[in-house]
């Protein structure tokens, strides 16, 4: 079997400015954040980002990387909206393509199946059709004659997802309760990348969880990057939950230009190892501050 292991730098080198890039996960859950941070450090620009959006969209927008965002929502889960995405929308600095969650799923599925669209009731009557004037409806060729939305394939130049375990050949294992739509992001993309908490031997995959957790096959994978803590600060259960303290710090910093500059300097202007060290130190500082407050 081919060894598909890459470094984060080699992953970024596979991408080009102007690409349409799908990002797996959901909201602030199991996002390939190490890959996002690697894109932030690169000179890539003018991207179309396709995502069940979380801080991936917010961070890329804040760095001016995003020309177009394609999404059904952008949320931090425990905090309803991402501050950078809000700012980008409210200042009109990115183009927004907003779809219903189910339409979005069908767009990925259509791309995975190499068909131009899939029909759905979802979207009919809503402003999704008004704000995306290129969307069309299609009439059933059968006796029912129903008129449905023709959700176009969301074809991706590249996709990246984050999983708990993978082998070097690109079989991936998701140990958390929800695989979301990660398999479809890979299926919809020309170049497919999986970041993982840990690369393990193939025989350790089935030993590590039920067969259903082995839901990413190497048929869907071109590159594997080992990134321990690579979903931080989003949740990657059972390896770790969302770092709520850090997420709050992210949101607070976004509200003030000086604070954001300091946040960027400390957490984003460093390489991935530096990020992991800095966020652990930040967690210790928050714990110390809490202890001091309780002691006072």
């Amino acid at each position: 079997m081919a060894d598909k292991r890459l470094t984060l730098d080699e992953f970024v080198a596979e991408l080009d400015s102007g690409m349409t890039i799908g990002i797996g996960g959901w909201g602030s859950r199991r996002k390939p954040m190490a890959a996002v941070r690697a894109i932030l450090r690169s000179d890539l620009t003018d991207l179309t980002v396709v995502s069940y959006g979380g801080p991936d969209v917010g961070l890329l927008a804040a760095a001016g990387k995003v020309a177009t965002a394609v999404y059904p929502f952008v949320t931090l889960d425990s905090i309803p909206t991402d501050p950078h995405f809000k700012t980008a929308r409210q200042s009109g600095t990115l183009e927004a393509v907003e779809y219903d969650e189910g339409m979005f799923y069908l767009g990925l599925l259509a791309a995975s199946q190499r068909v131009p669209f899939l029909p759905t009731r979802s979207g009919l009557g809503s402003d999704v059709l008004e704000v995306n004037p290129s969307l069309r409806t299609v009439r059933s060729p059968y006796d029912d004659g129903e008129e449905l939305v023709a959700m176009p394939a969301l074809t991706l130049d590249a996709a990246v997802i984050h999983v708990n375990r993978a082998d070097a050949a690109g079989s991936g294992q998701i140990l958390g309760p929800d695989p979301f739509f990660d398999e479809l992001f890979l299926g919809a993309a020309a170049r497919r990348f999986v970041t993982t908490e840990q690369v393990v031997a193939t025989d350790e995959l089935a030993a590590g969880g039920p067969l259903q957790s082995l839901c990413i096959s190497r048929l869907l994978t071109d590159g594997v990057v080992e990134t321990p803590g690579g979903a931080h600060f989003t949740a990657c259960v059972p390896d770790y939950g969302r770092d709520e303290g850090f997420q709050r710090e992210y949101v607070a910093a976004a509200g003030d230009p000086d604070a954001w500059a300091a946040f960027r300097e400390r957490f984003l202007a460093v390489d991935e190892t530096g990020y992991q060290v800095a966020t652990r130190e930040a967690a210790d500082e928050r714990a110390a501050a809490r202890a001091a407050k309780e002691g006072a």
Partner: protein
Amino acid sequence: MTDSTDGGITRAEYCAVACAEVFRGDGEVMASAFGTAPALGARLARLTFAPDLVLTDGDAALVDGAPPLGASPASLVLESHMPYRRVFDVVWSGRRNLIMMASQIDRTGNQNISAIGPWARPKAQLIGVRGAPGNTVNHTTSYWVPNHSTRSFVEQVDVVSGVGYARAAAAGPSATKYHEIRFVVSNLGVFDFATPDRSMRLASVHPGVTVDEVVEATGFALVVPDDVAQTRDPTPEELELLRTVLDPRGLRDREVKS
């Protein structure tokens, strides 16, 4: 003002039973409920008059019974795996009854959770349309608005996320086939669309609220019947469940003040 400490029924408790009524008579469907009063309403219904209702754990599973608010994951009895991708099978099959929240709702039942102001450059970007467009044309949907005002009850929402009656009718039979906006529950009353032109109607006011207050807090011409009912009292069993089983910490009274 009454509150649960002196035995009086709080406004939040009226809201919870009004939300429970959303689930009456539906049998074995998946209940999804956003907000504290809807979460309590679905649980109340499950434990009383809608025993076949199927509740979720808020993550990726269906649960047995009706766990209290904030129950630890370890305490839940799981019935079935329900990851997001499978949720859409349920949505599109129609076997779901949902209470969503609405940043704006309008006279014909359109809901907005996407953005306030012009689309190209909104005054406020909200969470996004989420599943609202698909939910509303596939299964019964109701709304919960804990802050009834002329800012939330508007003549026309800025971005139609959830589809109301007029928009569904204009989109044609495929949009109306499974469309039902059952109730809108707010902190002031309960509303439905039982009017000839499917305009929003005041169905009941919560005890302690006047019809004038509701009309004044609504940014469009609400249909007001000659006799407006009061939202029903919780039964003693429902009150007991709310106060001692489902929400002993009183989260409901933080969402809606009496």
